């Protein structure tokens, strides 16, 4: 997938067909769809463009010093639990800040939504006090684009008994099972559950010019040296650039979507690498900046015509922020699992996917087998509560248990709440002088009950698998997430949603928004494939609108 012709280069004063903000899962796909359809495209990305030679396995830099992610030193945020609390500086929302976006270093779990995710509100009759709503589209409408995502990006997996209908099998067989997967399967089968290979956007064999996974073990938050992880960075962006019509412009931090007196978008203002303010003109703007930066940008794009922020006549911009719940059970086994090798997880169950009214709360989820800890994280918190924290027993515990530990992870729903939101902090400015985001978030009681329920099941599975020692992560309201969902939800009603069923902003005809912010419900904990499917669908429709002069 080397670039064939010369890469496109545009001047900011050129009026390109589309300016796309963000180069991650959605931005990369839409850039490829629009450029291959014949349109000129500039993709503006906050972060730098890195090559394989610059990738590393630096846990400290990555996890503790915000490498390849938004850095609180230059882009601070504030956090509060409820609107009546005073927001304090904290790193709450984390996203990838490089060409490729969060998708460049995601774990590569690739779950489809099920039909019920799209119409749960009407089936269950809603959940009082929440904004749980049906999607404006159905699973059947999105299915072809899930298939497209799996085949164009490259996914390894096997069908399972709870899977939604699919029109085509996975393009690659599942990845080799790890010891965590074997133990998970043993425990789950003993309890009558239905373990299945975890679908992963990682090559299990040579696919589309990219090699199979080499099992080096550094997927979670790291970029893949082998291009075996099927990210938009290595699958879509090269195809977009090869058209000669798409420019990926790194180190370009968009500050505002410019609009004219007619209320149409005219381009995007951004700081270039030298912190000079530029304006990229465009006939239309596509916002794919993630569920945190997309609402921030819209709110920071206020103008006399759009006093509450752009595309915000509904007031829904920034609201309904959803994290998914992520908890689980730690376990130690008798013999080495060596979870430091290969992909994060190879087995999961979806037995508890659907909401079951008998449980007494809304929600469902999945449980999977993984380790999720690199050496520093393990040393800081990988031993059971009450273990020595320094000294000979500590050193011995680390040395003996690192290879014998795993995590039974639970992934659950988050209810959309108007009170969980991204707003603009009234005082705080970032290193570019731009108003920062203020996050307000508290998990709904049902989400925590669901997480407790899933944790209890994970505990039973770990014990049935023969773990020598098990301990659960405490279930409490979350204060940090990499899943940034729901903040510009899709809907047919302009009074309650930000974009329509084709991702066009209800208020601005030539502004489209597609990323995690579009999700109406939270997914059961793995939203990326849905973001990708939505992006393929949006790209196709946006190209159609442009061709028919409907933008």
């Amino acid at each position, binding site marked *: 997938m080397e670039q064939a012709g010369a890469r496109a280069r545009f001047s900011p004063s050129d009026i390109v067909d589309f300016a796309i903000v963000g180069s991650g899962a959605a931005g990369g796909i839409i850039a490829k769809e629009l450029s291959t359809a014949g349109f000129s495209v500039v993709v503006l990305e906050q972060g730098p463009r890195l090559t394989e030679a610059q990738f590393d396995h630096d846990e400290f830099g990555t996890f503790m010093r915000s490498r390849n992610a938004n850095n609180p030193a230059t882009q601070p945020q504030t956090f509060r639990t409820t609107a009546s609390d005073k927001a304090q500086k904290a790193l709450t929302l984390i996203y990838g800040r490089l060409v490729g976006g969060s998708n460049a270093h995601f774990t590569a779990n690739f779950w489809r939504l099920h039909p019920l995710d799209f119409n749960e509100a009407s089936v269950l009759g809603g959940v009082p006090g929440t904004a749980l709503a049906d999607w404006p589209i159905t699973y059947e409408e999105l299915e072809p684009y899930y298939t497209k995502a799996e085949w164009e990006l490259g996914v390894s997996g096997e069908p399972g008994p709870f899977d939604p209908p699919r029109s085509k099998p996975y393009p690659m067989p599942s990845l080799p099972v790890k010891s965590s997967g074997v*133990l998970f399967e043993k425990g789950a089968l003993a309890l009558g559950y239905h373990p299945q290979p975890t679908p992963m956007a990682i090559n299990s064999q040579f696919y589309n010019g*990219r090699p199979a996974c*080499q099992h080096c073990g550094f997927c979670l938050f790291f970029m893949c040296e082998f291009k075996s992880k099927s990210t938009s960075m290595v699958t879509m962006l090269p195809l977009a650039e090869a058209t000669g019509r798409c420019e990926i412009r790194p180190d370009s931090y968009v500050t505002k979507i410019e609009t004219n007196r007619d209320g149409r978008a005219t381009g995007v203002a951004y700081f270039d690498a030298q912190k000079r303010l530029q304006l990229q003109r465009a006939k239309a703007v596509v916002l794919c900046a993630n569920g945190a930066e997309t609402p921030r940008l819209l709110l920071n794009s206020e103008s006399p015509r759009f006093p509450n922020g752009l595309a915000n006549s509904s007031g829904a911009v920034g609201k309904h922020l959803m994290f998914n719940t992520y908890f689980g059970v730690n376990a130690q086994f008798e013999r080495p699992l060596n979870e430091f090798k290969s992909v994060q997880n190879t087995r999961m169950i979806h037995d508890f996917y659907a909401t079951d009214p008998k449980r007494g709360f809304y929600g469902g989820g999945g449980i999977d087998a993984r380790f999720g800890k690199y050496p*520093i994280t393990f040393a800081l918190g990988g031993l059971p509560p009450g273990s020595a924290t320094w000294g000979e027993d500590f050193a*011995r515990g*680390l040395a003996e248990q690192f290879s014998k530990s795993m995590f039974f992870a639970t992934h659950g729903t988050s209810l959309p709440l108007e009170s969980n939101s991204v707003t603009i902090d009234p005082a705080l400015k970032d290193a570019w002088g731009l108003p920062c985001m203020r996050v307000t978030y508290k998990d709904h009681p049902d989400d925590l009950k669901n997480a407790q329920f899933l944790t209890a099941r994970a505990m039973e599975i770990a014990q049935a698998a023969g773990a020598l020692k098990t301990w659960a992560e405490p279930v409490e309201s979350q204060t940090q997430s990499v899943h940034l969902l729901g903040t510009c939800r899709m809907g047919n009603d302009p009074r309650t949603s930000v974009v329509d069923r084709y991702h066009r902003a209800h208020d601005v005809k030539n502004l489209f928004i597609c990323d995690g912010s579009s999700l109406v419900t939270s997914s059961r904990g793995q939203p990326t494939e849905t973001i990708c499917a939505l992006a393929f669908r949006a790209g196709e429709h946006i190209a159609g609108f442009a061709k028919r002069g409907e933008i």
Partner: protein
Amino acid sequence: MDLHNRRAFLRAAVAAGAAWSAADLLAVEDALAWSADQATGQGRGGFTVLAAADADVLDALASRIIPSVDGRPGAHEAGVVFFIDKALATFNSGQKKMYADGVQDLNRRAALKWKGSASFARLTPAQQDELLREIEKTPFFQAARFDTIVGTFALPTWGGNRDYAGWHMLGLEHQPRFQPPFGEYDAEVNRRR
């Protein structure tokens, strides 16, 4: 990752049939590796921020937080004190005073408890542990514990984890490529099939 390992990864990528060619990258990496080796070699002897006597105390302290046990390397073998020095000289400069005061306090406690002790570093491990139990709730000890963990397990480019001593301690092999079986449980299942 350090340059040696990065080269190994690039070579493996080529061998794996990566469509992109890493040949030009290898040439660059080889050139860079030489200068990096030079730099590391020079760094082994000296400290930027720490006085030698203070470095001895911190080395001893780190060695009690993650001691070498059962013949495995620990914080001393990983060169944690060099990581602490590098950190205090750069991104962690805000903790210089806390470290200086903390070292002084440990030496003072040592001299009070065992008359004539010139330094915490000269005490026996059992005596050192006894003193550390007195201060294990202090911000200084917590910072030293955190930095000992990071210095033992972070990539060697941060100044510690020498020759991947910390990763050897955990049994973590750092290789560009593994093949199944990965662990004993999947090996067992694969044998049965």
